[in-house]
Every structure is written in structure tokens, then in C-alpha cells.
């Protein structure tokens, strides 16, 4: 495999993981605009464990993910009292605060960045991303996923049917944070370097775009959205400096035609009907 292709696929893998981190809370109707902050927690925590305590990365990265999830849980309890645009603003600020903390934390290199001693090769990254996708597919087959959809579509009725609306929201938010932390830890170990500036607002916003573009109704949306956002700009490389303008036109067109995202549940039903008819 050429170095270029490997590089693109690695970026795709990271984007897919990040997209699922945003998708989980969004499946319950909660927009997390601070996903980069949780990636930073996973990245720095796991890098710290491999650098300072000589932990193997297969233990350090999951622990970094767990820590990001724990922070998500603790912060989710108060933050998820807010709704809609206020929740988006709160999580946005949260992401900023977290990366600002790391930027000033000298123990992990501060603004100079933090080199990581252990290395995760591209195949480790692919396998990890595939693992996240499989895990998400499994989760989407559970009652937990059904409850998230119920909370998103009618919280009052879900509550009256006995669903713990707050519990579901907090769980989805914390799980999303853990997935983000996992992606962050992997990122640190693949590029062998962490810097706080990488985990910025643009990263959070782009990740949300993948998910909205792919669609939040089914578990496939984030995968398709992340793939589109990663691969299409590469395919448009031939058009040189116009590629970003073309890409933007594509996005606007698609969102106009499919405001619910590329992959919707009715699309699946259509395919199923056709398959049955054939």
C-alpha cells in the first residue's frame, strides 16, 4: 500500500472513531460540540501512562478512554441539565477549557507538545476503528439504543413509560466521551506526538458535520459521513485549488436534498422492500 493511501486511510479511521463519539449523544438528541476536549483527555492521559509509567499502549489507551468517559460522566450530570443551543454552547466551552488546560500543563509539555514513546502502526489503527464500528453496530441492536431514540423523539412519553431520560442522556454522553478518548489515545500513539492545539474547535465542529451529513437516524450515518468528508476532498485533488470550493458545493447540495443526512431509516426500508420484491 502506498504511503499516501495509508495516510488517507489512517485519517479516515480517526475520523470514523470521532464521528461515533459525537453520534452516541446525538442519538439521544444531545449535541456535544466539545468532542475534541475528550479526545485530548484520552490522548494526554494514555501518552502520560506510556511515557512516565512505561505502560503498554494496549492498556494505556483504554485507560485514557475510561478517564475521558469518567470526565464525561461527571461533567454530563450538570451540563445535560441544559438543552438545545445552551447545551451546544456549554459543551463548546468545555472543549475549549480542556484543551486550554493541557496547553498550560507543563508536566505534559505545555505549548511545546508532548512526544510519545510508543508507536501504534496503521494496521493497529485500522483494527481499532473496525472494532469501534463493530461495537457501535452491536450497541445499535440493543434496548439501550432504542431508549436513546425514544428519548430523542419524545422525552415525556419515554419518561412515562419508565425510561430514565436523564440516565440515558448521561450514559450516551459519557460513552461518547470514552469513544473520543479512545480515538485521542490512538492518535497520540500513531503520530507519536500530542499537542493541545490539535484538539481545537474546528476538529469538534467538523466531526459534528460528518455525523449530521451522514445522518443520525441509523448507526451507518457517521461511517458514511466520515468517509465522505475524508475521501471526497482527496478524490477532488485533481482539481487542485478548487477542490474545497467544489466540496462545499457538494455539501450544500446534499444537505438541500437530504436534510436528514445521507443514510436514513426510510432509505433502509426502501432497500429492504426492493430486496423482498426481487
Amino acid at each position, binding site marked *: 500500500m502506498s504511503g499516501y493511501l495509508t495516510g488517507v486511510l489512517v485519517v479516515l479511521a480517526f475520523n470514523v472513531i470521532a464521528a461515533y463519539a459525537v453520534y452516541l449523544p446525538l442519538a439521544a438528541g444531545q449535541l456535544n460540540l466539545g468532542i475534541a476536549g475528550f479526545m485530548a483527555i484520552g490522548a494526554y492521559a494514555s501518552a502520560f501512562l506510556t511515557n512516565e509509567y512505561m505502560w503498554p499502549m494496549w492498556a494505556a489507551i483504554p485507560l485514557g478512554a475510561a478517564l475521558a468517559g469518567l470526565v464525561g460522566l461527571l461533567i454530563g450530570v450538570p451540563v445535560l441539565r441544559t438543552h438545545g443551543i445552551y447545551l451546544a454552547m456549554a459543551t463548546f466551552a468545555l472543549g475549549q477549557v480542556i484543551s486550554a488546560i493541557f496547553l498550560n500543563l507543563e508536566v505534559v509539555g505545555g505549548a511545546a507538545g508532548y512526544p510519545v514513546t510508543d508507536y501504534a502502526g496503521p494496521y493497529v489503527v485500522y483494527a481499532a476503528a473496525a472494532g469501534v464500528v463493530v461495537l457501535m453496530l452491536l450497541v445499535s*441492536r*440493543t434496548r*439501550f439504543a*432504542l431508549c436513546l431514540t*425514544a428519548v430523542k*423523539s*419524545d422525552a*415525556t412519553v419515554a419518561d412515562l*413509560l419508565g425510561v430514565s431520560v436523564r440516565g440515558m442522556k448521561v450514559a450516551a454522553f459519557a460513552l461518547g466521551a470514552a469513544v473520543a478518548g479512545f480515538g485521542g489515545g490512538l492518535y497520540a500513539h500513531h503520530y507519536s506526538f500530542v499537542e493541545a492545539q490539535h484538539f481545537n474547535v474546528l476538529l469538534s465542529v467538523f466531526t459534528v458535520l460528518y455525523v449530521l451529513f451522514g445522518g443520525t437516524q441509523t448507526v451507518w450515518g457517521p461511517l458514511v459521513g466520515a468517509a465522505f468528508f475524508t475521501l471526497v476532498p482527496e478524490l477532488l485533488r485533481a482539481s487542485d485549488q478548487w477542490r474545497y470550493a467544489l466540496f462545499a458545493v457538494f455539501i450544500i447540495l446534499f444537505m438541500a436534498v437530504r436534510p436528514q443526512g445521507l443514510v436514513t*431509516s426510510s432509505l433502509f426500508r426502501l432497500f429492504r422492500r426492493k430486496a423482498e420484491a426481487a
Partner: protein
Amino acid sequence: MSAALAISGLSKSFAGVRAIRDLSFTVPKGVTTALIGPNGAGKTTVFNLVSGVYGVDAGRIEVNGQDVTHMPSRKRISTGVARSFQNIRLMPHLSVLENLLVGQHVRASSLGALLTPYRLFPNHRWKREARAALEESGLGRWADEMVSALPYGVRKRIDLVRATLAGASLLMLDEPAAGLNPSETNALRDHLKALMAKGVTLLVVEHDMHFVDSICENVVVLNFGEKIAEGPLSRVRQEKLVREAYIGTDEEA
């Protein structure tokens, strides 16, 4: 035997307006009861107080002998009370079967149940149970449809099946017959009678007096948040206060 629903001294105000005033009434088990009264009398507010959508200002609510007055709304389903809304509140982007599965939640809310990937098993017992409940009500062919694509009358009845799957023994129905055509109304009546035969107690808010007459044994009449009459419809409709407040405005009713 304890009552399905016992309300005593219930009061609720909104911004100084007293929506419910010192209301007391009882729904004995198995006695289908109608809650009637003119628009704005507080009927839906009673449902919202019993289901816990609103908190009470004063008074006490008991469901099947359990005090639910200050119980969080999501816990009340486990006492056996479920409700429908005036505008049907099924989840539009879910299939009929998935809506019913949400209805089962109260009986399948352990961590293990939540994390079982049941959708990988085409014949999982939860799906079998939901399908069987649909078949029993003659709605089997709608199982895999999206709710938003269904006729209104069918959606009303799927709402009932969902409440049944939640294990409801006291079902509060907010204008079940509103907006239905005569054949849909008959199907609904048959469905409700089947539920009654199974021992489900119904409390119905309804404007259609023929419908009330055909299923309800007892009637509680509200006006301006107060109970003004109670008893069988044939007797209640003769009372002067009631005629003035409500039925008297429509002799045909």
C-alpha cells in the same frame, strides 16, 4: 379491595388560576369511569397530575393502593398506571414493533436487558411478545410499518397495545374517540372492551356521550376544576348543575 385510582383533596394552580380545586373521586377496580366536563374544566390536568407530568399543590393520589403523589413520573408506570395523549404520542421515526418494544421497557430495564443485542435475533422473545399482542388486537399486519405512515385509528389502537405491554392495569385515555370515523370508533370500542375483560380499569376523558354511554359505568363531571356530579351517566345528566354546565348545552348529547 383497593381502588384502581383514589384521588383526595387534589388542588393545582397555574399562575394563580386554580385549575383543580379540592377534587376527590375514586375509580374502583374494573369500573370503567368517564371524566367529563366542558372545555377547560381540568380533565387533562387530572391526567397530568396522576401521571406525574405536573406536581400537585395539595392532595393525595393513590394508584392500586400505592401513594404516588410525590413519586417521580417515570416510576409511576410500575404501579400500573399508563395514559394516552389527546394527540397520539407514538414515536414517529420508529416502526410499530419498536414502539411496542419501548412499551416493554418497564419490564426490561435491567442493565443486562438494556445491553442485549436483541435485534440480532429475528425471533427474540421481546419481538415475539410484541407481535403476539398486535395479532391479538388484529393489528398484526402493521408490525413493520413506520408509525407516521399509519391511519389515525390504527395509531390510536397501537397506543393502547403499547400501554398493555407496559403492564398497565389502570389506563387513562384522553379523548380516545376524537377524530375517528364510525368504523374506527367501533374497532376502538371492541379493543377497549377486550381490555376491560382482561381486568384493565379505564378512566376516559371523552366528549362523545354515545361512546361514554356504551363503555362507562360511572361518570365524574368537572367544571372549573371542581367535581359537580358523580354517578351513572343516565342519572348524572338529569342533574341541574350538570345540565347548566355541560350537557344542557347540547340536548342531543
